[in-house]
């Protein structure tokens, strides 16, 4: 694992083909990382967006998702995006669909990704197959990676942070054999505006989570002045979170100023909470 610092609004992309990824790489200004990696990995300068080219198939999708997680030091609050082309027995050629149900041959149980709220984008059921399918009649969307991506990503984060988007590239009226590299890039390109819109929701989601879990403002400062064990650190963090809602920094500094040990810091902070009379008219 690398020591990249976890950033706010953290996004990880898992995309099967370079042609599918090109528009995303250009838009988010992602550059190939400067190291030899098992799968090609790209990132932006701020290290908030990372993208891996997985290659085709479920094994590649699963392995590359796990690899990107470890390589980019993703967090529990990182959002994961899978986008690509898909065959479809329904819908319109070239349109973008969100996925809210996934099935495959091997598993009896389907899985159910969340989708972003209040979107006008249509949603469909995705079937992930290990072989190309030419009979589209029984399926909505068909791809070769989605279920494996979701299975692994949902072990790394909550399902609310995972998004699968598919652009219809072939179907009963559009022969799979007619797909070319430039057609693939173009299919993603014409949907870029919608893709950015969807991803901005996941950026916000991730950012909000990071803000919630951010350490209280005085935490590190206090820890540097007294020695806290792991249990004490946890107590300190909880107490500071609670106190910072009704007490400003100066007041907190004042009450702990004369403490000689970490125990007494915890004691005075606990007393502060114990004696707090919540002023409900303020909230």
């Amino acid at each position, binding site marked *: 694992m690398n020591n990249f610092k976890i950033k706010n609004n953290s996004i990880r992309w898992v995309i099967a083909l370079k042609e599918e990824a090109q528009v995303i790489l250009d838009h988010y200004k992602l550059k190939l990382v400067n190291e030899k990696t098992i799968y090609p990995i790209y990132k932006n300068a701020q290290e908030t967006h990372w993208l891996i080219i997985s290659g085709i198939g479920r094994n590649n999708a699963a392995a590359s998702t796990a690899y990107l997680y470890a390589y980019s030091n993703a967090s529990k609050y990182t959002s994961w995006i899978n986008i690509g082309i898909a065959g479809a027995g329904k819908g319109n050629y070239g349109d973008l669909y969100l996925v809210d149900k996934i099935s495959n041959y091997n598993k009896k149980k389907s899985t159910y990704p969340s989708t972003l*709220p209040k979107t006008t984008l249509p949603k469909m059921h995705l079937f992930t197959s290990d072989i190309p399918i030419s009979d589209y009649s029984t399926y909505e969307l068909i791809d070769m990676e989605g279920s494996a991506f979701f299975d692994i990503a949902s072990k790394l984060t909550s*399902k609310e942070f995972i998004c699968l988007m598919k652009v219809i590239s072939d179907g009963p009226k559009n022969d799979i054999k007619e797909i070319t590299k430039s057609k693939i890039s173009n299919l993603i390109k014409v949907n870029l505006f919608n893709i950015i819109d969807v991803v901005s929701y996941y950026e916000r989601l991730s950012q909000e989570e990071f803000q919630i879990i951010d350490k209280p403002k005085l935490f590190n400062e206090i820890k540097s002045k007294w020695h806290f064990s792991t249990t004490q650190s946890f107590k300190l963090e909880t107490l500071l*979170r609670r106190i910072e*809602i009704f007490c400003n920094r100066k007041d907190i500094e004042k009450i702990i100023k004369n403490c000689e040990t970490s125990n007494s810091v915890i004691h005075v902070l606990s007393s502060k909470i114990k004696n707090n009379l919540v002023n409900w008219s303020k909230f």
Partner: protein
Amino acid sequence: MIETIYVEEVIKNHPRTKFILNKFKKSRIILINKYGEIFNKRNQNFRIQKANPSIILAHKKDSFVLPAPEGFGIGSSKNFYFSHMYNCIYDCRYCFLQGMYSSANYVIFVNFEDFDIAIKNTIKKNINSKLTFFSGYDCDSLALENVTGFAKHILSIFRTYTQTEIEFRTKSIQKQPFLSLNPIKNVILAYSLMPELMSNSLDNKAPSISKRISVISELASKGWKIGLRFDPLIHGENWKELYKELLENIYKNISPDCLHSVSFGTLRFPKRMFKDIFKLYPNEPLFTSPLSLNNKMISYDIEIEEEMTSYCKSLSLMYINEDRIFKCSI
């Protein structure tokens, strides 16, 4: 607006499924095998789901009626509860559901008839005891009544078994089916209340206290028996004035004859549950309260609890008899 409704395959043609789906014509319907595939799986974020919950229509297989936890009763020798739904459309910050389930989606069980059988069997098995059933322990019993019609359905049992009480505990201002029915003497409509100032901050998405009081007064004047549930009691600046104002306002608006019971409950969380809820909402004013670990529970200190309970009780005693006042202690 409910965007997605998951429907268990086995009940997709159930008349109640169709009845409910008919109310959500714009929602996307997704068929599933078992509600457990969606509900309460690991790796879900309750807070994010709460912003946009889905409905899950399901078939309940067992455990239709369960013994109520110790300390939940209002005078009967035996207490039971049942829940036709898991989760709630409101978002009270002290609610134990947010620490109990990892999913905020609403599960609605459509096989009401199986609840009927289990309730009747429980009554028959306990024929010599005074029983109270509590509807909606895992949800608000009336908040989604206009969608489910569960209360209306279940009332018919209690019209027959007049010696058995049922309590619908709620914060909703749902007046039906009660307004259009004749009162049933063993049915208690129990309202959870706290001073408006606290409720504004804590009872997210729930109707205001003044609206609740106005509905209570309307249903009471129609003859329905009312329960007042000051549960949890919330501490804070001027708590005495705030509770005095609330209690006086209620007792002035509702004839004491309509009051079945009044209960006071303290704010308590099992340690683990508190940790989970705090993790979800670390910046909530509720957690600036003087809550600490007492007897494996996170609560106010016993002195605060007792002071609040006895203060509210003594105010209530000016209006009703002691035998109708209870302490809820779960």
